[in-house]
């Protein structure tokens, strides 16, 4: 086996040094009844690289790669162009094959990029501090709710109807254990009156902007209403590219920002791994989950970085930790930070503008198709349209024509009748004029 350096002779010599008769002697503590022969596993034997490549390529070929056709799927995952340098750099051995930076003297590379990442995330979100990432946007949102419950010592969390349903379900799964989650009504293309639902037992309100239908929300009045009752505002962002063009949640008085960072530096990857961004106010850091890199000096006075405030974490605090999380999204957050370093202020702003312009022109183009009306009037790079036929069947019909038209709202809201005819459409810099034209043309054929 190409990955195993020990030879049969090595193994014999090692057993001799150990003083064991054979390898079985080393498994002495395993109950005999629990040891099974290889034949107990109905699985194939070793394969060469070429053979594995052939097998897996065949599976991959059964999928329609988003980049091979005009594709307009968003709803929490977005297809953007990732510069070649990003993927090259994250595959540097020293990044790819290192562990959590527990030995700071020989992990400054990781610790410094985490520190830079934390700064970038805080700047984008308009917040004071950010952590070194969580698993993804949905779990970051759930962690934010738990953190708000700890901070306010209250149990109720109110979720906006515009929060991505997968996020809402993820929050419910953990926040219902010790608290109570209430969902506001779903109002595609409009803002529900969430402020009215906030009472003195409310720990937090969770509002996504742009919301799952693409609508940009005004967070400031919600923050004011929450703060008036002693509750916190958690702002959720699923399209990190929007930070380049929209007023950041911090400037709208959000207390915690939970976001999905996939759009910057990371591919679609069929849903994961992604990178959860998490930012908050400095005064809340001791209740923040996840790893943190902090600046300090070494014994010679040189600047360096270490994992810090670890007493919040499971390896020290055990059952009193702020979260059970152990890993972060290491490589994905590295990809994020490299892509953002390449973009810089100028590149990100331009790219965000390009995304908005692309979506705006597509919205205008699609709205001209008979049987289509625009549901979302203010948006970043994603909007919702109402169709004269059920969206799912339209999407299936367009898929047969080689167009991935977007996400039917009914896939996310299967029990909501109003969702049946709604289609959520995203457009990014990767969509060309030809793509948009093909989409409009296909749509008009399918709807006629």
């Amino acid at each position: 086996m190409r990955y195993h350096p020990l030879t049969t002779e090595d193994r014999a010599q090692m057993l001799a040094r150990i003083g064991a008769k054979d390898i079985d002697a080393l498994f002495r503590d395993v109950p005999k009844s629990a040891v099974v022969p290889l034949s107990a596993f109905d699985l194939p034997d070793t394969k060469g690289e070429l053979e594995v490549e052939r097998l897996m390529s065949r599976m991959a070929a059964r999928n329609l790669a988003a980049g091979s056709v005009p594709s307009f799927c968003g709803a929490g995952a977005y297809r953007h162009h990732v510069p070649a340098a990003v993927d090259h750099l994250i595959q540097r051995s020293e990044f790819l094959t290192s562990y959590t930076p527990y030995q700071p003297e020989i992990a400054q590379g990781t610790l410094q990029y985490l520190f830079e990442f934390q700064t970038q995330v805080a700047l984008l979100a308009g917040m004071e501090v950010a952590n070194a990432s969580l698993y993804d946007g949905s779990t970051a949102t759930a962690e934010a709710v738990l953190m708000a419950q700890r901070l306010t010592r209250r149990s109720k969390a109110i979720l906006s109807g515009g929060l991505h349903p997968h996020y809402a379900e993820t929050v419910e799964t953990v926040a219902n254990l010790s608290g109570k989650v209430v969902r506001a009504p779903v109002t595609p293309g409009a803002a529900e009156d969430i402020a009215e639902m906030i009472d003195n037992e409310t720990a937090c309100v969770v509002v996504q902007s742009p919301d799952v239908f693409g609508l940009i929300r005004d967070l400031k009045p919600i923050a004011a209403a929450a703060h008036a009752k002693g509750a916190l505002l958690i702002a959720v962002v699923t399209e990190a590219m929007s930070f380049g063009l929209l007023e950041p949640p911090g400037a709208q008085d959000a207390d915690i920002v939970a976001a999905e960072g996939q759009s910057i530096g990371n591919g679609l990857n069929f849903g994961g791994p992604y990178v959860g961004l998490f930012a908050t106010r400095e005064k809340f850091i001791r209740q923040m989950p996840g790893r943190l890199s902090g600046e300090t000096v070494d014994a010679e006075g040189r600047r360096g970085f270490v994992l810090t405030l670890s007493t919040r974490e499971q390896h020290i605090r055990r059952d009193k930790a702020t979260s059970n999380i152990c890993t972060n999204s290491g490589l994905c957050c590295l990809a994020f930070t490299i892509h953002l370093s390449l973009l810089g202020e100028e590149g990100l702003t331009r790219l965000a503008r390009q995304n908005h312009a692309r979506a705006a022109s597509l919205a205008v183009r699609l709205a001209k198709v008979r049987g289509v009306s625009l549901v979302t009037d203010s948006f970043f790079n994603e909007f919702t349209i109402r169709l004269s036929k059920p969206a799912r069947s339209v999407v299936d019909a367009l898929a047969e024509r080689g167009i991935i038209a977007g996400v039917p709202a009914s896939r996310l809201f299967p029990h909501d009748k109003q969702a049946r005819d709604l289609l959520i459409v995203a457009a990014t810099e990767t969509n060309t004029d030809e793509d948009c034209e093909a989409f409009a043309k296909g749509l008009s054929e399918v709807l006629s």
Partner: protein
Amino acid sequence: MSEVRYTKEHEWVRVESGEATVGITQYAAEQLGDVVFVELPEAGRKVGAGGEAAVVESVKAASEVYAPVSGEVTASNAALSDDPAKVNADPEGAGWFFKVKLSDAGEVAKLMTRAQYDEFVKGL
């Protein structure tokens, strides 16, 4: 100066006119290493003898500090928030944690004297 009493959890308590000042012992401070953070109870909070009242953290450890006596917290040592190193420098003086207005003065007598505590530590 009034007598200081000690707990098995390494807190000390000094009572003066119905008010108890609480901190952690020299031994505890040495075991913890460099203290980096102290979380203190707010004034007005009711604490019960043996109940969690504060948290003290070093880089690699976090420990609960228990109230040796029952009562209402009247003050906490704000200076520790800015300079937690005071806990290491002077644990049984300037590094005090909080003050409690006693609800049951009888509880104090049940705690260890200095000699008893020293003996207790020797056995650890």
